[in-house]
């Protein structure tokens, strides 16, 4: 087990390199301020990468290529066709395989000198401390608020640095949280920056809001660079600072962030789904539902019903069920288009937005004939029409 010393990690005993390794890492070894001492620190370090997706792909690739000795790969997902636009670790042949397995194969081929540890599971409050304790540093390449707060809190409790990156459409954020300075003090953590998450539904995920494919490549590479700096103790890590990239306007900013001295100390892990309000809002209470198979039967019957699609027009172009398009944000202006008499089935991509639409229409206008298509157009593509594009 390595220990933290002056922001870097040192282990008793000499780390040696074989000829093949010296040649592989030669471009590192000839950098005066990095040299074999930096390479040695990388080799003796243990890094956990949480999330093997858009950010995880470049992070894992560069850390493996750079010679970080032990790398933990944590994810519970399988490779999906829609991942390939940005998750460059994977190929067409990997679709349907566990991401961690596909990643391990690819990374082992890249650098067989690295010890790769696969965690094919979800990080939870029950296992996070035990998993993270085995590593010197954690890289946050996750895609949701509950896991980001969980990673942060576990790192704070265990005193590990957390190299953070996050993306949305064309915008990215990077920081090094909970960095231990030479005087033993710790830099700000994620909760110092954002004490609480936004309410569910306010900030869309990449799955809902989209992301330009190259952006995780940029942000994940910046995270990998910070990991290498922290591990090798070279340069000034992005601790106490937040880097922002707007790739659309090509604007960058580096802002100062501070420890919140009024914040309650983080001493234990909590229920992060509850903390982020997700256990309360997955489904709108009381909203009537219809399954995709019931809708398919309805379509084949002579029943009179109305179908309303509350997605955006650009989503409608990818796939649709022929419903009347009324985007969620415009629904208050289109009340007259919604039948108050016959059965009205409202749908979106996954069923979340349509549930919100129904809940709002019922409470504001007293509709009683609205049914939410359970699982949305994704469920329709999965169960009824496999030729339909999923996104």
């Amino acid at each position, binding site marked *: 087990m390595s220990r933290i010393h002056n922001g870097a990690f040192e282990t008793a005993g000499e780390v040696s390199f074989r000829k093949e390794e010296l040649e592989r890492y030669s471009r590192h070894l000839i950098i005066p301020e990095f040299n074999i001492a930096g390479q040695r620190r990388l080799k003796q370090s243990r890094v956990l990468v949480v999330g*093997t*997706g*858009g950010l995880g792909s470049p992070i894992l690739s560069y850390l493996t290529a750079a010679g970080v000795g032990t790398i933990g790969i944590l994810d519970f997902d399988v490779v999906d066709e829609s991942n390939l636009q940005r998750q460059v670790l994977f190929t067409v042949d990997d679709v349907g395989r566990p991401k961690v397995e596909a990643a391990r194969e690819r990374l082992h081929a890249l650098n067989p000198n690295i010890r790769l540890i696969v965690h094919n599971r979800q990080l939870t409050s029950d296992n996070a401390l035990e998993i993270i304790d085995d590593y010197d540093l954690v890289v946050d390449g996750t895609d949701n608020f509950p896991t980001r707060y969980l990673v942060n809190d576990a790192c704070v409790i265990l005193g590990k640095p957390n190299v953070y990156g*996050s*993306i*949305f459409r064309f915008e990215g954020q990077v920081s090094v949280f909970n960095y231990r300075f030479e005087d033993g003090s710790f830099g700000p953590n994620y909760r110092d920056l954002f004490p609480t998450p936004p309410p569910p539904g306010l900030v869309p995920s990449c799955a809902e809001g989209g*992301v330009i494919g190259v952006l995780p490549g940029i942000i994940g590479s910046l995270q990998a660079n910070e990991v290498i700096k922290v591990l090798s103790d070279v340069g000034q890590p992005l601790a106490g600072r937040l880097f922002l990239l707007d790739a659309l306007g090509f*604007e960058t900013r580096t*802002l100062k962030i*501070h420890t919140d001295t009024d914040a309650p100390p983080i001493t234990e892990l909590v229920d992060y789904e509850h903390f982020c309000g997700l256990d309360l809002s997955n489904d709108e209470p009381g909203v009537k539902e219809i399954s995709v198979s019931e809708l398919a039967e309805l379509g084949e019957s002579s029943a009179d019903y109305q179908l309303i699609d509350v997605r955006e027009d650009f989503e409608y172009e990818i796939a649709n069920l022929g419903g009347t398009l009324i985007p969620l944000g415009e629904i208050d202006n289109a009340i007259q288009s919604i039948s108050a008499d016959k059965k009205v089935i409202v749908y979106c991509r996954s069923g979340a937005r349509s549930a919100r639409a129904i809940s709002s229409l019922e409470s504001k206008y007293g509709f009683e004939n609205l049914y939410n298509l359970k699982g949305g157009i994704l469920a329709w593509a999965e169960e009824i029409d496999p030729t339909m594009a999923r996104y």
Partner: protein
Amino acid sequence: MANIIIPTPLRKFTNNLPTLESDGETVIEVISDLSGAFPELKPHLFDDQCDIRKFIRIFVGDEDIKALDNEATPVDENSVVSIVPAIAGGAR
């Protein structure tokens, strides 16, 4: 005229404008000015007690207003006010 940088998730409330200008002389005047011009933005910036929401940080230049004078931090025509929300994307 302070320059305000609008983050991507909030641009749908500002007619997709990435930057805006305000005559406000303090951060709260600038932010109130903004939410007055774009009423749909207001609930995303302020909570029920009219405090700036905890998943949004405001910076003047490169400094967090918490380290300055909070919402009373003065701004002038050279100030760049950044609104920075929590975003979570990364894996899927």
